[in-house]
């Protein structure tokens, strides 16, 4: 096992966007139960350090692969196709208009303290995200169209921020 291998090989999974989450969970737990510092609490210095490094590495790999968005970004990164940060990327106008409408709807619901409306928006957005991930799976795993995939990932990064905004708004309503 190579410490510097990519996250997919670390968990012995195929390098692909589609992934069996329960298999990832299982492999993660198998690895952690081998390397976790709790297994080495009374061990020597060298092993404690190794265990810390490995457990950190396994956590990093797991976190990256667990969430679809970070998994997609990581796949693009492995293919030397980094998506860059959301702040310095030009997006198509229609997408931006759509995003602004979403944001206005969230801001209005927040101002009016409409918790139900926020939940509804949250639900709709989640469904929208689900569909986008299906599309992303086809682009990454079947068509191998990295250019288009990177574009979809950038959009999802925007949408992900929107989701956080809705969460924040719900918190604000509850307080």
């Amino acid at each position, binding site marked *: 096992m190579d410490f510097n291998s990519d996250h997919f090989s670390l968990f012995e999974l195929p390098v692909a966007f589609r992934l069996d989450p329960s298999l990832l969970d299982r492999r993660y*737990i198998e690895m952690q139960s*081998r390397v976790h510092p709790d297994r*080495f609490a009374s061990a020597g210095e060298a*092993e404690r350090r190794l265990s810390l490094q490995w457990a950190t590495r396994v*956590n990093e790999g797991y976190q990256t692969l667990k969430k679809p968005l970070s998994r997609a970004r990581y796949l693009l990164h492995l293919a030397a196709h980094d998506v860059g940060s959301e702040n310095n990327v030009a997006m198509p106008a229609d997408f931006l208009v759509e995003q602004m409408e979403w944001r206005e709807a969230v801001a209005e619901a927040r101002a009016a303290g409409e918790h139900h409306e926020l939940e509804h928006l949250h639900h709709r957005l989640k469904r929208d995200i689900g569909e986008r991930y299906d599309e992303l799976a086809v682009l990454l795993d079947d068509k191998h169209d990295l250019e288009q995939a990177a574009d979809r990932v950038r959009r999802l990064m925007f949408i992900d921020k929107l989701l956080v905004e809705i969460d924040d708004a719900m918190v604000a309503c509850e307080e």
Partner: protein
Amino acid sequence: MALLQIAEPGESAAPHEHRLAVGIDLGTTNSLVATVRSGLAVVLRDELGRPLLPSVVRYLSDGGNEVGYEAQARQALDPRNTIGSVKRFMGRGIKDIANRESLPYVFDESPGMLRMHTAAGLKSPVEVSADILRVLRVRAEASLDGSLVGAVITVPAYFDEAQRQATKDAATLAGLPVLRLLNEPTAAAIAYGLDNASEGVYAVYDLGGGTFDISILKLSRGIFEVLATGGDSALGGDDFDHRIFCWMLEAADLKPLSVEDASMLLARAREAKEYLTFHGVAPITGRLNSGEVVDLKLTTEIFAEITQTLVAKTLQPVKKALRDAGLSVSEVKGVVMVGGATRMPQVQRAVGEFFRQDPLNNLDPDKVVAIGAATQANLLAGNRAAGDNWLLLDVIPLSLGLETMGGLVEKIIPRNSTIPTARAQEFTTFRDGQTALAVHVVQGERELVSDCRSLARFELRGIPPMVAGSARIRVAFQVDADGLLSVTAREQASGVEASIVVKPSYGLSDDEIAGMLKDSMAHVRDDSLLRALKESQVDAQRLLEAVRAALGADSDLLSADELSRIDGDIVKLESAALGENRRQIMLAMDDLEADTKDFAAQRMDKSIRRAFSGRNIKELDGAPVTVKTGETA
């Protein structure tokens, strides 16, 4: 030892003697120490059979102290020198303490971690906590008849770096090696999980004397995975006492009180609170110094009313933690109640209503944390029995970040990340020819540095002069399994590096700890030199045992050359460990450690490869780990 704890499931590690390890619940109001004896976790009692040790220390003018019930009994008579609820002061500056005017202590005005003037001199919360821990250590050593390998000490999940570090410092000062700092709710879940073999998502609602914690955990197949934590490090049972106290002042129309009177009434308030758990009305009587008599009746209805906002305040972090975990109330399978303050009926009711189910109460809420800590300590000390394969995956409670331009926080590690974890980010210089970079490490969820807790500052110097924006400085955060942070900054081109193990602004330096250790020796008959020697001898035996077992299992990984060098080190260490020269033991240990370093790495690789080979069989039932059932109390 651990090299060797890589035993296949169901197969026990090399046989060895049982190692003495304890779990300590260092509570705001009471502290406890527990251990695992023949597979059973038990709370250790004092010579009078009492399980709790009140977390109260009274300092005497001869420099000595009284700890526990003795100190508590004198609290009303000698409030200035009798420190209670010191946990609230851990890792805190004087400005952090709410309603400090109503406290009887004489705080020192100097900056840094707060200190109190007592008859025995200036005392920091770390020293006070160390005095409590020392009593528990002595109790454990007496009842276990031997020197401790170490302790697992619990902290509220919501404790920040400064508070965790202060707790660890206190243990060091008390001569207790810390195996792990464990989050209290997680400890409670361990106690419950092992008892009931529970599967699913659980919420742990922990209302202690001075802190409130909520944790959302997933228990499955022997894995305790913390999904989210939250809480309020300045909300607890003491606040309920204080509400009663304020109600008393109003109801009896009392004038400003002397420190002694206030202490006495606060004690009456606490008694009334406890009484109301089983009764509808609590009589409150007390005689003030002036001779004036306070005679009141507090009903559960009034009590619920005056504390309603406190109860509601606990539910905010609960909602937040559920959201962080991405879960709704209906997905929570059970709610574990921890902390004496959860005995209050209005708390039980509010939690039951919120989660739409009756909370779990079958373990004593005062003992459950210590029991869980003892169970974890036993495992960490290497007393692993066959089938004892559970694992705890914990998270950090608060985000860690850096100050960037304009006093803004750049989060490096988000809250609720599973630990250990590491994350790096690149920064650059702001001015042409800039040769130093100030790194300011902060903790918290807010965007402005001023709203977060400052943990540490350090400087990276010697950056070669470059055009602004062209230096590449990589700042790496590493959080270990105790949730403690170290930070490294490195300029990529030149390799200039600076790093710091975060000793938060209110932590103690190693020198300060050494100084306090020396001071404390003047009053405590505690032969620390002999102790240190004994500890190194135990450590040496542990290392020897580990290496021997490792050689037994995997000596084929070594060349003849390496093997003979290691054999030589073993002989040297064996003879050193028989002697009384501590330095010699340490040096021999260093040699053996150094010569087995590569061996350890090879064994780790081998073990990881093994995690995957033979998987076919294990995948039939889903996981290589098994839930431990029964056994603990």
